[in-house]
């Protein structure tokens, strides 16, 4: 019997790191986006900062999604 324990371990570690990272980045983005209108009224700068932060987070997630599509579609390899 030849069970690839190392490969299984790798899958667990990589999936944990990447999966948790994406959700954390997206959650930070959602948080920034949701506090944005409140800050925008009298502290416009804070509002802009929140919007930019949210944008960066969503951009990072979009890039990871693109990498995911690249992995799924064999023609891109």
């Amino acid at each position, binding site marked *: 019997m030849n069970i690839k324990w190392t490969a299984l371990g790798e899958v667990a570690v990589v999936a944990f790191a990447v*999966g948790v990272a994406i959700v954390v980045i997206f959650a930070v983005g959602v948080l920034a986006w949701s506090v944005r209108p409140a800050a925008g009224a009298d502290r416009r700068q804070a509002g802009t900062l929140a919007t930019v932060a949210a944008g960066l987070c969503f951009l990072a997630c979009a890039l990871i999604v693109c990498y*995911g599509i690249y992995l799924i579609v064999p023609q891109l390899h």
Partner: protein
Amino acid sequence: MGNWSFLVVAVVITALAFDFTNGFHDTANAMATSIATGALPPRIAVAISGALNLVGAFLSTEVAKTISGGIVNDTLVTPSMIFAGLVGAIVWNLVTWVLGLPSSSSHALFGGLIGATWVGAGVKGVHFSVVTEKILIPAVASPLIAGVVAMTATYLAYVITQRGRRQEVTRGFRAGQIASASLVSLAHGTNDAQKTMGVITLTLISAGVLSHGSGPPWWVVTVAGTAIALGTYVGGWRIIRTMGKGLTDIESPQGFAAETSATTVILASSHLGFALSTTQVCSGAILGAGIGRRLAEVRWSVAGRMALAWVFTLPAAAAVGGVAAAVAEQGTVGITVVFVAAIAVAAGIYAVSRRNPVHAANVNDHPTTPIMSPSQASA
């Protein structure tokens, strides 16, 4: 040989029927949580999932070189055994569907083939060490890994967005769910449609219709892709309800965390060389998302029934496949008997399902589970 015998036609038809059940059995994997949280309306969700499964079928170029991935000795497998194995897999998929239980379609297919090979070619035709490596270990590992990732991700998602405005947070995660659910569907299409293509192509080769080493002809790719997409679109609403509403009450941050975790685990496993079961990964991720949110109730009785279905999938499909093989090996009459019996069983199960139909309109109602508390009944 070299022509379309009755047997070859029977294998192609049952392979497509299996592909169809594969599709509607697995719609829930990608779309259950999106439908449950309202990220996508039910009809739209299954339409997107079906379309992406079709796209995935055309994208997957690397069609399986062996029917079973080494679980049975392919040189001993005859077309009538493949036929019997497919019948076993279809019957088990329909039984678990009518019970609303997500179970792995690949395990059903492997189980059916194991049973059919065992009866048709003897126990030496089954490679039990490969069964351990490719089925038993992943069956334990898939839900565990996905569950831990989803639990951690869900917990962190709630902690991080605690101070955000609830309505905006819910909307944000719902939008994210559309992307994560779509990725699961695409990955599913590239993986599962090609299994059926492989079975059909290898049968055609063994019957001499195609030359050795040839890839699937365009019509095989088209009909296999269409069968799985149609199955997905028809939607296994019973299973969607179990996964979206039965296991735990899903909110949009949990749905996003569950789908994202499932996608990463599936992609990591297919690219680092340890194949995990999509169904079990997705179920594990939903459970993990349930545990990760404080005060969320996980209905362990539903999880328990699901786990029981997983344990029985392989032996049950093997038993049906074995009986079918014993009959089908008797020649054309035997194959006809199995064919008619399979259609009768499918019709019977469909008739049972009509007594308590689940469809797009009532998919988000709570299933009646023994432990349902009054607060959930009114929710």
